């Protein structure tokens, strides 16, 4: 299957073998690659072969698969590298630390005192603030849909959902030029 790639995207070039990489796993939709500049030795990134900049654009079929493969890479890290733990980490959007406009799941082997910090300073929110957020999110989460009811409905073409408009593509390519 030829992946929908994006010119100028570093990750798409890895998918297309234009940039050499150490591939750990590959199937029709997903590629897992060893990060040679990783946070720890054995750090892998799991990517969709098709070009989607952010999580929200990855079709459900592919997102499920990406997490399954990430879990398998995590298990492989436990088994073969003797890691004490693993992190699955996604930075979705620039403010969240995303640096390349191609959705990526990081799978990171962990050992105690390895210098990686994925902790946070807990915020103290008032009861009122928590309740406001709760209502807003719960209200929006209604839009997620009735999973139970929709289970019986016929399949929907993942391709259709995945389509990225011309306008979006134009926008993304502008973003890509800004990247180092």
């Amino acid at each position: 299957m030829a992946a929908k790639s994006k010119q100028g995207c570093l990750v798409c070039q890895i998918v297309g073998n234009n940039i050499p990489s150490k591939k750990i796993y590959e199937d029709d939709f997903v590629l897992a690659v060893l990060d040679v500049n990783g946070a720890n030795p054995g750090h892998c990134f799991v990517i969709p072969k098709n070009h989607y900049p952010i999580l929200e654009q990855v079709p459900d079929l592919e997102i499920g698969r990406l997490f399954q493969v990430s879990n398998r890479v995590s298990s492989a890290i436990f088994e073969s590298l003797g890691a004490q733990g693993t992190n699955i980490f996604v930075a979705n959007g620039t403010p969240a630390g995303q640096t390349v406009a191609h959705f990526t799941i990081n799978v990171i082997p962990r050992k105690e005192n390895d210098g990686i910090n994925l902790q946070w300073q807990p915020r103290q929110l008032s009861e009122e603030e928590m309740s406001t957020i709760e209502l807003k999110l719960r209200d929006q989460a209604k839009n997620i849909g009735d999973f139970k009811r929709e289970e019986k409905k016929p399949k929907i073409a993942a391709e259709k959902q995945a389509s990225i408009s011309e306008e979006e593509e134009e926008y993304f390519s502008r973003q890509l030029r800004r990247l180092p």
Partner: protein
Amino acid sequence: MAEPMNEEQLKALQEKLRNMSPEELREFQKKQCIFCQIISGKIQAKKIYEDDKVVGILDINPANPGHTLLLTKEHYSIMPQVPDEDLSYISMVVKSMSNSMLRSIDAQGTNVLVANGIAAGQRAQHFMVHLIPRKENDGVDFVLPQRAMEQNDIDAIGNKLIAAMGGAAGKEEKPVSPVQAIPIQKVKAEVMKPVSPDKRIEPKKEAKPGINLDDISRLLGVK
């Protein structure tokens, strides 16, 4: 907090645990698990999403307002125990919930984080996905160091991982056979479909109307 156990009680408990079958052990862990009690409603929490398999609650020690924990209703201690089907399901909920954060609480991005093992920062014996709404300069600082690997290590570590994945990925003369790939039928893509426009809650007048994927992807932009 419960009183710390004395030596005798501890011994008795260890003895009891040793004699348990895996099923009994899981049942025991479940009873001890605070998140299982939240799921069953015995302990109060701010639930923002719930279906047959998954519950989403607000973290009481959030990195940012809206920090959500997505939990499987079934008790799994760590991610490798979660069946493929459940994992792909929860990942679809993660995606939709991330979308909700961008739309409802003005998040400009999100972090998805799973910690497997204490060394990775796992604190509770119940598998969960952290979903953290992010804004520019919000003070949350997840920086992953970059450590360049030697070519020898790349080959050694890479080959170990390839072997553990059970395949020969990346060798062009020997492409990964579809048999080695995860059977695609396992992925339940049909359980979710995009919400049709008529089912969407109409945005309130003061809310920004008609936020779409274009707007959301624009959030990727720097300045």
